[in-house]
């Protein structure tokens, strides 16, 4: 019962202040600084840096991040395949390290790939095999295996050797294998990577069904922003081991969309126009389109300041004889948010330097 009082009871999965650094040793490698060969060189890669988040029952949490950000390591730490250096991971209120055996029956994992299954066997034989390994037996196993294949849409292929199945079908089977012990928590590491649109759509639908109808907690790591945006109730963005954002998907998008406006004008204004703009308005970029140039502008966050800035901007346009054709709020997608937060396209960072920093610093954890 250790530490139970500290774990938020509404979470089925909870990570608290989890850190993980991988150390590798390279022998006889050339030192980048000195250019000389060294007998042994130690390299460190931080995969988790004080990560804290939780997943509620019936919730799909998405973990986004560039390659090597620490997404898979986080999944592996929840499933007990990797031990954290510090911090604790709880599943159903139990510490993963101390109660590993108990939590294994509560977790199903699909780890990056289609080769979880045994290719010389059929899907049904695979499910029987893994069912036995997970202490599911007899009539229950047979019924559940057939139900799962029906549910995922593989019942017609249940007697075909896995090696003859398509990539999408193999991935569906991997999900069935993860579900064979009827776990409360499903961890999916990039479940739609490399799949065609139809297979990806089908897997997304099944994940939604599994979560909403069966009240499971699901953690999905993905590179695919569309998958995350469509599927996840909450998004965590992880970069270089740090969880830099964790919010409900809609709120995260809202946070980034409300200050950016696209103003379509009749011509590209000269530089004096921008020099005269109030300091609260920042030009992010000028896009060229068939219907004229589009000024992408960032306005202040508070309603009062924003209103004031708008009036001022319109006055400046009038004084420069600049015709405004349309003003629209920029509809940002998750890809935009992701690029902003991970620094791949930090236009907002630059724009906000004088305003005291990135909006991402404010209210991104929830």
């Amino acid at each position, binding site marked *: 019962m250790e530490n139970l009082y500290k774990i938020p009871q509404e979470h089925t999965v909870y990570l608290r202040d989890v850190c*993980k650094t*991988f*150390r590798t040793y390279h022998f006889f490698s050339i030192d980048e600084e000195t250019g000389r060969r060294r007998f042994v060189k130690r390299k460190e890669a931080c*995969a988790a840096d004080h990560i804290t988040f939780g997943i509620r029952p019936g919730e799909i949490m998405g973990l986004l991040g560039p390659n090597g950000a620490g997404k898979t*390591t986080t999944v*592996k730490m929840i*499933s*007990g*395949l*990797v*031990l954290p250096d510090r911090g604790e991971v709880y599943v159903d209120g139990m510490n993963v390290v101390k109660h590993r*055996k108990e939590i*294994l*029956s509560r*977790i199903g*994992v699909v*780890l*990056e*790939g289609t*080769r*979880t299954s*045994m290719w*010389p*066997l059929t899907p049904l*034989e695979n499910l*029987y*095999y*893994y069912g*036995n*390994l*997970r*202490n599911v*037996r007899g009539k229950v196993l047979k019924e559940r295996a057939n139900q799962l294949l029906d549910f995922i849409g593989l019942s017609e292929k249940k007697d075909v*050797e896995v090696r003859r199945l398509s990539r999408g079908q193999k991935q569906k089977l991997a999900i069935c*294998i993860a579900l064979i012990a009827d776990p409360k928590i499903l961890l999916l590491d990039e479940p739609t990577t490399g799949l065609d649109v139809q297979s990806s759509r089908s897997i997304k639908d099944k994940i939604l069904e599994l979560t909403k109808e069966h009240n499971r907690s699901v953690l999905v790591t993905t590179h695919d922003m569309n998958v995350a945006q469509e599927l996840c109730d909450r998004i965590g963005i992880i970069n270089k081991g740090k969880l830099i954002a964790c919010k409900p998907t809609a709120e995260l998008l809202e946070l980034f969309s409300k200050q950016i406006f696209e103003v379509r004008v009749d011509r590209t204004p000269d530089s004096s126009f921008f020099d005269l703009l109030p300091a609260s308005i920042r030009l992010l970029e000028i896009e060229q389109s068939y219907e004229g140039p589009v000024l992408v502008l960032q306005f202040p966050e508070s309603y009062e300041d924003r209103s004031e800035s708008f009036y001022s901007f319109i006055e400046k346009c009038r004084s420069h004889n600049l015709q405004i054709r349309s003003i629209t709020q920029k509809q940002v997608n998750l890809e935009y948010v992701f690029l902003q937060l991970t620094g791949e396209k930090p236009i907002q960072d630059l724009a906000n330097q004088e305003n005291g920093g990135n909006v991402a610093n404010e209210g991104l954890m929830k």
Partner: protein
Amino acid sequence: MRGFLLIMKAEIVRAWIITRRYWFRTLTGLVIGYGMFMILIAGFFYSQPAIEKGLNQLDDPTRATNYILGFIIGLFAFGVIGMFTQGIQEMAQTGVLEQLCMSPYGLVTNFLARSVVASISTIFYSAILVYMVVISVGGRLHFDPVPVVTLLTLSFINLIGFGFMIGGLVLVFKQVGQLIIVVRMVLFGLALFAREELLNQGWIVSLLVHILPITDASICLKYVLVKGQMNASGEFVSVFLHPSFFWLVANCVVWTFIGITLFKVMENWSRKKGTLGTY
């Protein structure tokens, strides 16, 4: 124990399905194995420094049988250790290793069950091969079921302990698996050349024979199957009274303890290092 039996059942079903589904591969494996043994045995004798002497020796069925059995036990050792080295590498590459780790019974139970099933099928096919080759060279095997089954079981336990130790290393340092082919070859050689006469070669050799895995098992099996449990004076002395048998039992206990303990330590370490499912 229930978990072990459950996994064993799953493994037997899996092995049976694969054997049945890929029957042509199984059959050709047996035929090729037979051919290979005949060539190996012949080659072994022909490569002796004195070719004529070697040719004469080929006419000695007892000696030939001794080597055939040595080859088979050696191959068995080679296979069991291979399951822990190549097996773990392959499972890590395919992602099966991580799924095994997600089994509530743990990796040790899983590997134990897998190796038992793999060994039973290896022993079954090896027995067919031994008989085919022994009959071909005109030899004779003294099949006494109780000592043979006991010795095979002990040989397996002996190898499993050593296998777990090697397997533990491979869990953390996957690339070591390539180097361990040398260890497997050494085990093969030990099984091939182990014989009672080595015990009279001074205490250092004798101690080495007793400490190393598979040597005592090989000596005992050859004593039963080739010599028919007859000592140098031609008297029947049960293998259970043979000094190598006692060493074999002690060897099993010590190697199994060391192997499983080390495997558990290394499994934990690999989870700390994050190398469990990586290759």
